[in-house]
Structures are given as C-alpha cells and as structure tokens.
C-alpha cells in the first residue's frame, strides 16, 4: 500500500504542522505523519508544544497565578475573599479542554487546507521513502513516496540516570503538568526556563519548591542585570533556587525521595514528595532514520542542516527542535514556513538574529537580540537605557510594578542590538522590539514613535529615551 505526495512532513508539532499547512497553501500535495500518544492513549496533533509543553504550561501558569493573586494581591485592592481554595482537578480539566480544543483545531486546519494527516510513526528509509507504522495497529504498515520530505521530529526530555523517570514521583516536564494535587514538597532538578516555570506553578499552589541548578550562573543565556532582578523577585516569592548544586543521586523511601547534591559548601540532602527532572531536551532522532539515508546527525543527535534547513540530501529538509538553534516553537514554525516556501520554488529565509525568548514566570522575562555580556565579549560599543516599571503608571495600577525594560543600542549607529524586559506582559511587549529590530531601527526611532498612555509599553518608550539620557519620567544620571 503506497501513497504518493509532493511533501511528507514527519511530525505535527508547531514546526511540522505549520510547514504542512503552508506547503498545502503553496499548492503542494502534502501529508503530515505524527505519532503523539496522550495519557489517555489517544492520538493528538500538535506535538510537545500543544500537548505537553507551551500550551498546558501556560494554562496552569495562568490558573496558579490567579490563585496567587487572590492570596497576595486582592487585599490591596480592597477585595476580601476569606480563604480561597484551589481545586486542582478543575484546573487540570480546564487545561485539558484547552489542549483538546487546540489539537482538534489542527486536525480541522489540516482538513480545510487539504493536508493528509496520518496517525502513525514515520521512518525515513534509505531509498527516500517514508515507512509509516499505524498508530492503532503496529502490524499495519504503509509506504509513502514523496518528492520532498521534512523531518520535524522534535525533541524529548533528557533523562538522568541518577533520577530515572518512574512517571509517578520522578517525572519529566510533561509529568509535572499532570499532577493531580500540588505536592507538599517539590524538588526540581534544573533551574532553566522549564524548571522555573513548573516550579512557579506548584509553588503558587502551595508546594514548597526547591530548585537545584548545577551551574553557578542562573539563566546564563539571558542578560544578567535582568536575571539578578528576577532572582530577587523569585526570592520574594519564596522560590528556593540553589545554584551550583550538582545532584549526585536519589533514593526513594517511605518518607519521600531523598535527593543528594553537592555544592561549594559540601554535600547536602533534601527530601521531597515529587521530583521534576528538567535538565534539558534532546532531539528525538534515534529511530527516525534508516542507515544509509545520507542525512547526518551531529554527536548530540541534531540533524545537520544549512541556513535554509537543507540536510545535504536532495529534497530532504529538517526543522524545529531536531535541528540546531533555540528550541522554541516559533523558531520551528518559521523554519517550517521557510521550507514550505522553498519547496514551492519561492524565495524564503529565516532571520535567526531576531528570535524572541520568553520565560513565563511572574514577572515574565522576555528578550530579543544580544545581552550586555555578549556585546562586551564581542567588543561592540553600546549604550544602555533601563526604565523601571515602578515608574510606570499602568504597572502600578495593576499592582505589577516589579521589573524594567532595558534597551541596548550601538554606541555609534544607535541601532537597537538587544531588548530585555522583566515585568508584566513582557511576553507581549517584546513583539515591538522584535519588529523594530527586523527593520534595523534605532533607539531614536522608538523615541519618535508615539506609545499610548497609560500603558506598559510606555516603559519601552522611556527606556529608549534613557539610552540617550533624555528620559522624561526618570532622573537621568
């Protein structure tokens, strides 16, 4: 049994499904093969992002933040709510509904765009065909022929030998999203984006959270001024983050899970009820390729590609988390768009320099472009302007005046080189900066663009003025 297509996309995560839809819109006969199995055993499109990552975590972050506000902020507004309770089951149900809504949405988009969605596990054979094992019946196989093949197999959480997953008490990020109640004591190995977000969720819902980060630097890839300000906020929230803490082993016992770690002060132990391992993700390429396809993997398992996502084998492309670059859904999606356009013979390119990164803690952290540390390292002369939300009317009215906007501009040309935000809605505000940087705008361009009042984005405006020491609403030093 063999079907023939112009394009077969392997993987229906944000990279794969976007690529498939765009390819179909470009007039190519497209199929998208995906094997995601949810906890209920059912198939869903959308990959990690929709099922076990971006979307469910944002739903929980929203619910937990709201609960946190009732306990810590409502009083300031004069709202008396007594003793608010959290029904985790309802929270989880809401999350599940959103996820199923969106994954169903992808199936609908496939249908309306004439993308053939295939539920199964795909493997690229050395003769260039795609072998698909049916999702429901592993004995049923199908062979797909395609002019172009796009590998969008995504990534999976890294497992630690010293803390192997048991899917109950020692869990990966997906498991951490599925707890039925907030654990009394929660340990998190890994203080990166995922560890912070998941730790935040359960800490707001009453867990005592301890995050163990092996590196001495917290969030090393972000601007350190922002990171230090964020660390102070997390401390206020009683998020216990321990740096330089290398976990050496775990033991499960009746009292809970003992986590042994070492830092510069010596050996320590903590006991937790649940342990999340969030030390990173690795490309899910181990069973993707038959020997001899010609597609090369690097030593970490990433598929090697050029800047247009060609693998080096004619008409075989790779996008998303299984190739180099930041493991971000929007990066995967835009690579998908680029490849879909290239396959249709159009001109397309990706601008890897201007990809925003977000951490959905509260306050949120968002950035695009270079950090001060990177600029110093590259010897680029720059000027910086920081404006605190404490001086922003809207933020104060929202009881969310922690954080700041920082703009880094080239000392000579004034071109914006990096924008870093800690604060409310940072994830939304960063879009202005990304657009500005795509157009190679200068800090002066932001100064001369009207920002509505009263808004949070005024802080961006003021920060651009601080770059030239001409802020109106702050004392210029």
């Amino acid at each position, binding site marked *: 049994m063999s079907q023939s297509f112009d394009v077969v996309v392997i993987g229906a995560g944000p990279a794969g499904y976007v690529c498939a839809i765009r390819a179909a819109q470009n007039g190519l006969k497209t199929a998208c093969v995906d094997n995601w199995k949810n906890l209920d055993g059912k198939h869903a499109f959308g990959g990690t992002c929709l099922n076990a990552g971006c979307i469910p975590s944002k739903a929980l972050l929203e619910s937990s933040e709201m609960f946190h506000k009732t306990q810590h902020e409502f009083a300031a507004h004069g709202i008396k709510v007594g003793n608010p309770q959290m029904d985790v089951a309802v929270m989880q149900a809401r999350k599940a509904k959103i996820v199923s809504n969106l994954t169903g949405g992808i199936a609908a988009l496939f249908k309306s765009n004439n993308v053939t969605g295939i539920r199964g596990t795909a493997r690229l054979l050395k003769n260039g065909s795609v072998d698909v094992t049916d999702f429901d019946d592993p004995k049923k196989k199908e062979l797909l022929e395609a002019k172009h093949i796009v590998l969008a197999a995504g990534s999976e959480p890294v497992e630690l030998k010293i803390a192997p997953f048991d899917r109950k008490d020692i869990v990966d990020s997906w498991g951490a999203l599925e707890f039925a109640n907030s654990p009394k004591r929660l340990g998190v190995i890994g203080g990166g984006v995922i560890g912070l977000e998941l730790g935040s969720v359960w800490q707001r819902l009453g867990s005592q959270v301890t995050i163990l980060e092996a590196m001495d630097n917290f969030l090393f890839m972000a601007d350190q001024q922002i990171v230090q300000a964020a660390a102070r906020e997390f401390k206020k929230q009683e998020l216990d983050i321990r740096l330089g803490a290398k976990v050496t082993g775990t033991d499960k016992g009746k009292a809970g899970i003992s986590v042994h770690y070492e830092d510069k002060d010596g050996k320590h132990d903590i006991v937790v009820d649940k342990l999340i391992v969030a030390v990173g993700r690795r490309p899910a390429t181990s069973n993707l390729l038959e020997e001899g396809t010609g597609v090369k993997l690097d030593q970490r398992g990433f598929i090697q590609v050029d800047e247009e996502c060609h693998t080096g084998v004619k008409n075989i492309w790779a996008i998303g988390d299984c190739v180099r670059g930041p493991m971000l859904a929007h990066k995967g999606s835009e690579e998908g768009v680029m490849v879909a356009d290239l396959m249709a013979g159009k001109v397309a390119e990706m601008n890897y320099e201007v990809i925003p990164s977000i951490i959905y803690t509260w306050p949120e952290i968002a950035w695009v472009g270079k950090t001060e540390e990177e600029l110093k390292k590259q010897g680029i002369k720059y000027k910086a302007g920081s404006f605190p939300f404490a001086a922003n009317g809207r933020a104060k009215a929202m009881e969310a005046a922690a954080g700041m906007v920082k703009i880094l501009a080239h000392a000579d040309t*004034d*071109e914006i080189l990096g924008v870093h935000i800690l604060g409310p809605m940072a994830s939304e505000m960063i879009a202005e900066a990304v657009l500005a940087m795509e*157009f*190679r*705008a*200068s800090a*002066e*361009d932001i*100064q*001369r663009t009207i920002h509505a009042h009263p808004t949070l984005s005024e802080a961006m405006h003021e920060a651009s003025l601080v770059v030239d020491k001409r802020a109106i609403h702050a004392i210029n030093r």
Partner: protein
Amino acid sequence: MSIEIKVPQLPESIPDATLVSWHKQAGDAVKRDENLVDIETDKVVLECPAPVDGVLKEIRIQGGATVTAGQVIAILEPGAVAAAKPATALAASSKPPAAVVTETATTLAKSSAATVSTPVSRSDMPLSPSVRRLVEEHQLDPAKIQGSGLDGRLTKGDVLEYINKGGELPASAGSVAQPAQSDAKAAAPMTRAVSGNREDRRVLMTRMRTRIAQRLSESQASTVMLTSFNEVDLSKVMELRTRYKDKFEKQQGVKLGFMSFFVKAVVEALKRYPVVNASSEGNDIIYHDYWDISVAVSTPRGLVTPVLRDADQMNFAEIEKSLTDMASRARDGKITLEELTGGTFTITNGGVFGSLFSTPIINPPQSGILGMHAIKERAVVVDGQVVVRPMMYIAITYDHRIVDGREAVLFLVSIKEQLEDPARLLLQI
C-alpha cells in the same frame, strides 16, 4: 496611456547630448522621480526622472547614443508597478560591473567642471523617524545614501556613516574618477550654468582628487606611453549572450556580462605576448607567471580597481561572480586593500559613459592597459558587402620602454580575433 520619455531641455542652447547609461531596463518597474538615465553634455550631466510610477515599456535609444532636446528616448507605461526594486543611490544595473571613464587629463578638465544633478525627491521611499530627522537636519538627499536595512531601507547608521565619512578608497592612476552622480562630499562643486557670470572660484582639491592627480603625473613621467587601436565586431559575442544568458543565469546564479568574455580573451592574449603582462623595475623586466587582472570599477567615492587573481583559472561564471561581488563591496566601502592592489594588467571601460575612442593611462608598475569603449552599430564591410555590426573600438596603451609596437598590436589583434570568433575562447587559440 503610454507616456513618451523625452530628452529634457538642454541648458545654454547646447545642441545635443549623450545618453550616458540607462539605470533601468525595458520591463523594469519605476517609481515617480526615479532617475531613468543620465544625459551628459559638455558641461552638465542631467538626470531624466520618471514622471509617474509605472513600467519602462520600451527603450528607444540605447546608452551611448547622441540625442537632441525633446527627442523621444523611451516609452513609459504608467500605473502597473511590478516588484519594487530597492532604491539605492547607485543604479542596480545588470551591466558588467566595470564602469569607468578613462579620459586623458585634458578631457578631464572639461568634464570635471560642473556636475549638476537635479535632486530627485524620494518621497515614496519609507524613512524611519530618526532618518527623517537626520535628513531634515542636514538637508540630505536620501536617494544618494546607500541603504543597508530591510529591502534597502536607510537605517540611522547608514545616514550617520554618509555624513561622517568623506569617502576614501585607493585611486588607481590608470583612470580618473568622474561618476555621473557625485555625492555631497566628493569631487566637483555644484555650478549653475549662469550666463554673464565671469568670476573665478578657487576650490581646494579633495584628498581623493589630489591623490589621483599625483598618480597620473607619476605614471606619465615614468612611462613612455603609446596607444594603439583596433576595432571588434561583437555580433558573435552578443549572439552567444542572447542565446544563453537565461540558461547561464539560471544554472550559474549570475548574469552573463561582457567582462567575462573580455577577461578570457585578455588572459589568452597575455599568455601569447607575455611582455604585456610584465612589469618594469629599474633595469629589469619582471615577467609574471600569473595573470591578475585589475578591473576598473566606478564607485561613488571614486575609481577603484579590484583585482581578479589568477584570472586564467577562472571560468566565465567565476569571473562574473567575482566582479559582481567585488564591485558591490567596493561600492559599499567593504573591499580590502589587498583586493585592490597588485594586478599585472588592467581593463578599463569608458564605454558605459559613452566614450567611443580614448587613450587610457597605465597603472604603474603594469605595462599595459586595455580600454573598452561604447558598442555602436556601424556600417562595416564584410566579404565585400556593407553590413551593420555592433562595433567597439579597443585601445591598448603600453609602456614602450619594454613593450614594442609589434607585441602591442598583435596583442590587440589576438583579442579582436578571439571575440569575433568566440569558439577561439573555448579552444584557446
């Protein structure tokens, strides 16, 4: 409703002018006020802006031709604007990158007098707020500034650089810089052709100009220059180009210009007459077993001669790619000094500006320079019949101290023969 593009009123009752070079090709989209073609008279170079947005449907008169005031030179179809091309101060043309005026010092004196450019208002070019402010403050013409931003937009940095830099790139002695559109800081001052005004204006030479003057004098003083001429029937080359240009561009990724043909012919001729590829030093003649061809390129800051190293080992596509790359980097000021120095022989092309016949000046320590000129349809005799052929005069100026007339003349004949029968380029005979 098609619009006829006519030669504008010529100043001071000058009878005729030369169409220098088209900045747009037939079929290109043009925007209102975009300069279509430069028209050169003895005293001034005029621009011919498009009156409205549209498509340049037909070019009636080719670059290099003589025109009179009011003459129809092109047809513009208003309205339909295809893909907007990025606006830069330099015309993005598909012609070979070598665009150099090679005039002797005397001709230079005449043409350097006045370069009046009618300022083209780029009201349709999107300018960001900071760029608008700088343009306003410094009274700049954005059309003259090279944009490095998205789609060729001007960034604040581009404008600041334009304001700060005077524009310094090493000038070569063999040719003199006189680009049709000079930027605000360089070369000749703006003069209005006002009748009745008999004052003298004393203007200090720019650094660039001083350096050019110096090198030209040195060249003239140290070498014994003599120029010999010949003419080439380029019909076969043009036929080849017409037949294969699309395929070439598709498969090789670069346009097939004339320069690759000329470079190949030159290298072959240099191999046959090695003294033309040699340099002189004191009492020694230094023969070079390599062929590094300097190709003159006009940039807004002046003339530069990037070198095609080991041109004998380059194929057509490599030559075109290399020239395109070096020319654009030279115009952006991003070319390195190493890429501009050395060279065993130079090719210069005054034809783009309309020169028919000229005596180029040698670039010491080289011993020869080939001058290419405008291609003109002329009546010539072939097999006893008068036919019309696209002819180009070619000139070699050579250092008679080490190169004799025999070698120089035969060198030129070899180039003529190879280009008139391109199979010889393939067979290297």
